């Protein structure tokens, strides 16, 4: 005689009502993403976030699980974004000494790059017929993702689209940056790193670190400064223009 085993669907109903399933799915998909990323020797196109999002989205579609149900469990991971944002202070603090003697070119490059990023994306997207939801998601896309999503909330844009465009921008910047820098004949490592950090935040920074230590340090600094300045200026500018 065997004990009464619960039917599969009963187990399923129980699990999908608890945050556990969404948490396991999120962490396992990210772990798979990291493994693939390492297998491809850190190729920016095999970005772990992109892989994880694709795997989870396909799973949700296959299981016919609504996004809201998934997010109820995954919100515990999501919550830590704010805490991670605060702890960005540490790498920024450590990067500050590299500013010495280069304050003017660094800040000017930051402002020039930041403005270019927003204006070019908005104008092109509008010109090609994108709607305002999509255009709103582009505004903060060059900031580091945790800050970009906070800014999106403040300006009434979708944090989800912002996250997706931000990650895509990081991947594109990490993959294309080298060719652009060669085309404009930028040879100093610190300038190359800084430009990548302004345009492609964390994903660009990890790429820069894998090429050259000084480039990586400046990319990290650019990412941090762009995050702080963007978070203060963008919501203010958007509300002034409205």
């Amino acid at each position, binding site marked *: 005689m065997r004990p009464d085993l619960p039917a599969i669907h009963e187990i399923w109903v129980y699990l999908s009502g608890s945050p556990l399933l969404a948490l396991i799915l999120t962490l396992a998909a990210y772990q798979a993403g990291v493994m693939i990323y390492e297998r491809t020797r850190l190729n920016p196109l095999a970005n772990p976030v992109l892989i994880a999002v694709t795997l989870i*989205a396909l799973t949700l579609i296959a299981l016919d699980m609504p996004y809201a149900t998934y997010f109820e469990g995954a919100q515990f991971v999501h919550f830590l974004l704010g805490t991670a944002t605060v702890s960005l202070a540490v790498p920024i603090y450590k990067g500050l000494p590299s500013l010495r003697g280069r304050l003017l070119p660094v800040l000017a490059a930051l402002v020039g790059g930041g403005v270019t990023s927003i204006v070019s994306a908005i104008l092109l997207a509008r010109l090609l017929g994108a709607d305002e939801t*999509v255009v709103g998601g582009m505004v903060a896309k060059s900031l580091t993702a945790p800050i970009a999503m906070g800014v999106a909330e403040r300006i009434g844009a979708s944090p989800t689209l912002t996250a997706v465009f931000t990650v895509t921008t990081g991947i594109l910047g990490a993959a294309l940056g080298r060719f652009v820098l060669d085309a404009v004949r930028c040879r100093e490592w610190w300038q190359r790193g800084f430009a990548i950090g302004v345009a492609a935040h964390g994903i660009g920074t990890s790429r820069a670190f894998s090429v050259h230590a000084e480039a990586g340090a400046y990319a990290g600094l650019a990412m941090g400064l762009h995050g702080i300045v963007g*978070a203060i200026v963008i919501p203010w500018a958007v509300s002034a223009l409205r």
Partner: protein
Amino acid sequence: MIDGLVRILVFQGVGEVIAKFFLPLVPGPVIGLVLLLAFLAWRGGVPEGVELVSAAFMRYLGVLFVPAAVGVVLFWPHLQRQALAIAVALVVSVIATVAVSALVAKLLSRGGSDAA
């Protein structure tokens, strides 16, 4: 490590409160970041606990924005219709941003300030 987490959470909390009551346009965690940065500068170094927690967050930063990004499933039909506009805007914008940042840094470093 817990002492570091407590410090960071306190800065986050203070940042959220300031954002809520005084600076509604700036995200609370960014205010917390600036305050922590000021604290580190005043202290002249990074406490060990804060260092540990920060290193862990930086290492696994990517996983934290997965839950929100999965929301893209809700926008999928919407995005498909505008795929060309989105792709062109993102690609051209990142190229322009890298080029402008690099050129500005390069042109303004020529005055000999490069010595540093």
